[in-house]
């Protein structure tokens, strides 16, 4: 009986989706996005869209292998913009009414008067609510898998990980939407408040990204300065010894020049050291603030990072490295010894930032997000099970 009831609820959820135009519009748009991927091509001469050659974009298959081009397009456009942004909003619009409709007078009596416990009814409806996103991301990922296989020449099954990851991402928002739907009984209120919650997470993520960038830059500067100071000290020391020996002074093998001696010889060293100290302070400060935001993010669902897990799987650090090395830009942050001016390498900073973000464990990203979802769902179940309708 249990299985039959669950199946009936899922079939009902599918029928509801089927009756909604937005579901089919989203599916058609998904198809168009995949088709637009397939229309893009890359060869030794450069990029093409259908039969038009895009000469103004300085890219070819030597810099960017076809498989990487399609993967990047899938990750940045397909996943980053379409699935986790536009399609997610369309999904929320479609499914936000689920709980308010369920608890509406006349409808809730029909459901609660059946031999199915309230908690099971609620959780089954919740799972059925994820059907929209599952179907959308499923169709999209399978089609993309085909396009990357045929056009990019690489059959990448890991791409299908997008299905559970995007469903998990959506469920983090959907659980909030469901709780708000239960509390407000209104589709529009729950939808707007969920979007507000999403915006809050987005702000937190943007702050986090900015702080990670700041921290990476501060650390790149600090490391470059520490390196430069050490090198300058070393050079000066060597210079000092060579000079004094050349003047006939007897110096023991393990002679160490004092700070004053070094400073007397190299007038730029003080400026460098001051800059290093201040860079160290800045780096510590950046690490502290970044840590605070990191702690704050622990209690909210990690929507962005959950989806970014796919990028970790699909594009390895080495591939990313290779992609970035193809660009004609400095790879190391350097310091002008005389002016103590630091020229920050974008490459250095971005590799550091990527490493910081990739160092965040899957357990932290998914574990804390699912914990959030579990708490919100438990609260919703509690309210649903105890309310009189």
């Amino acid at each position, binding site marked *: 009986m249990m299985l039959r*009831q669950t199946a009936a609820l899922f079939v009902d959820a599918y029928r509801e989706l089927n009756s909604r135009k937005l579901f089919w519009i989203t599916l058609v748009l998904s198809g168009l996005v995949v088709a637009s991927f397939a229309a893009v091509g890359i060869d030794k001469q450069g990029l093409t869209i259908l039969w038009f050659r895009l000469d103004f974009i300085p890219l070819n298959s030597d810099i960017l292998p076809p498989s990487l081009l399609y993967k990047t397009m899938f990750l940045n456009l397909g996943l980053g913009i379409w699935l986790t942004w536009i399609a997610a909003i369309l999904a929320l619009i479609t499914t936000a009414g689920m709980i308010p409709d369920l608890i509406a007078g006349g409808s809730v009596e029909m459901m609660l008067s059946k*031999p199915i416990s309230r908690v099971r009814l609620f959780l089954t409806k919740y799972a059925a609510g994820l059907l929209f996103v599952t179907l959308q991301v499923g169709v999209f990922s399978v089609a993309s898998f085909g396009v990357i296989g045929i056009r990019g020449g690489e059959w990448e099954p890991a791409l299908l990980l997008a299905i559970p990851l995007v469903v998990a991402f959506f469920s983090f928002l959907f659980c909030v939407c469901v709780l708000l739907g239960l509390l407000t009984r209104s589709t529009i209120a729950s939808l707007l408040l969920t979007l507000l919650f999403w915006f809050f997470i987005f702000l937190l993520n943007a702050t986090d990204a900015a702080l990670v960038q700041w921290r990476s830059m501060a650390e790149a500067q600090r490391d470059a300065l520490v390196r430069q100071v050490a090198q300058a000290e070393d050079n000066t020391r060597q210079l000092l010894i060579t000079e004094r020996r050349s003047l006939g002074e007897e110096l023991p093998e393990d002679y160490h020049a004092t700070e004053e001696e070094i400073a007397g010889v190299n007038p730029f060293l003080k400026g460098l050291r001051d800059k290093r100290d201040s860079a160290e302070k800045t780096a510590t400060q950046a690490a502290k603030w970044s840590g605070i935001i990191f702690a704050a993010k622990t209690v909210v669902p990690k929507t962005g990072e959950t989806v970014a897990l796919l990028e970790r799987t699909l594009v390895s650090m080495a591939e990313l490295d290779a992609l970035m090395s193809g660009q004609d830009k400095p790879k190391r942050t350097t310091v002008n010894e005389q002016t103590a001016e630091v020229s920050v390498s974008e490459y250095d900073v971005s590799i550091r930032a990527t490493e910081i973000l990739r160092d965040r464990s899957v357990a932290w990203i998914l574990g804390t997000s699912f914990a959030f979802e579990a708490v919100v769902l438990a609260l919703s179940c509690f309210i649903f099970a105890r309310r*009189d309708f």
Partner: protein
Amino acid sequence: MTTAPTAELATAATRSDGLVIDLHHVAKTYRGRIRALCGIDMQVRRSEVFGLLGPNGAGKSTLVKILMTVIRPTECRGTMLGEPIGHKPTLARVGYLPEHHRFPPYLTGAQVVDFYGALAGAPRAHMRRRTGELLELVGMKDWARKKVGSYSKGMRQRVGIAQALVNSPDVVLLDEPTDGVDPVGRRDIREIVQRLRSEGRTVFINSHLLSELEMVCDRVAILVQGRVVQQGTIDELTADKRRYEIELAAEPEAAATYFQRALPEAIRHGEHAVLPPPAGEEGATAAPPTHSPMARRVGYHGQLATGEWLEIDHATLRIGSTEPATIQPIIDALRERGAVIRSIRQHRPSLEDLFMQAVTDPNTGETLKPGADRARKERGR
């Protein structure tokens, strides 16, 4: 500590023998002050059609929702089909049509019956045949493949009844089943209810359409402000109010003289009483007797030698009996004295009379205001 509840359960089980619904002290208080139900005791027997009636806000739907686990009672001792109220698996044997129900508009009539059948745990094997049969029973076979969103209210009600029967329930609770249904539909629903009874199923109908209930119910309960004020068969509830009425074709004064001559003993020992004004003359005030013991607007209470009460109201004589033999000598006596009888009829109070009596405050004569028992609770604080 443990023996008391066990003993209570055993007693409850014994009490429940033959009872499909056996409620004791069902109470529901909202937000600690609005008392929707104030201790309901109600028994519904197997294979009977039970009608629950009451004014708006009396708590009828609340009571049905408590039975169907939609509302959690504040206090409830009782069973349905032998299981405690709130026992979910029992609901697989119960059919329910809520008032103002709303079906998903994207489903067809057949899909509605299928869907709720599946949720009610009806076996898949016989569902397809059963769905067809039920839709035919409620006259919706031709509409089975049309979306519910395009149905009229009466059609939705018919499909609602079909879904309530899909799991072949032992007891069916219908909350305002004829709401929005045309006269043909009402007759159909009545026939379905009678058929369910003949199949040995119990039907619990919640309605304020008294004439509908009167036609199908074996027993009724009247709920007023969260309390059961009357409960029993219609015959039981009207037993002391059934009577014969003999109307003379004469002016009240002349009629009074005929009655006095025909029944000298009874009228001599009787008492004058002020009767309410006859129908159609609302607002007319009762005047005390002046020149005649049986003047206009003045009633007369007395007793026959055989014990039945009698009452004179204008040109009508009422006798508290349903036995034809009782009134024969009275008719003879009146006829012998030359009285012309306009009509003789046996009067049985309707459900509406019972209902109106139940919702009328005996002290003020005013009907009670609709709604839950808010004031009483506040007074009790």
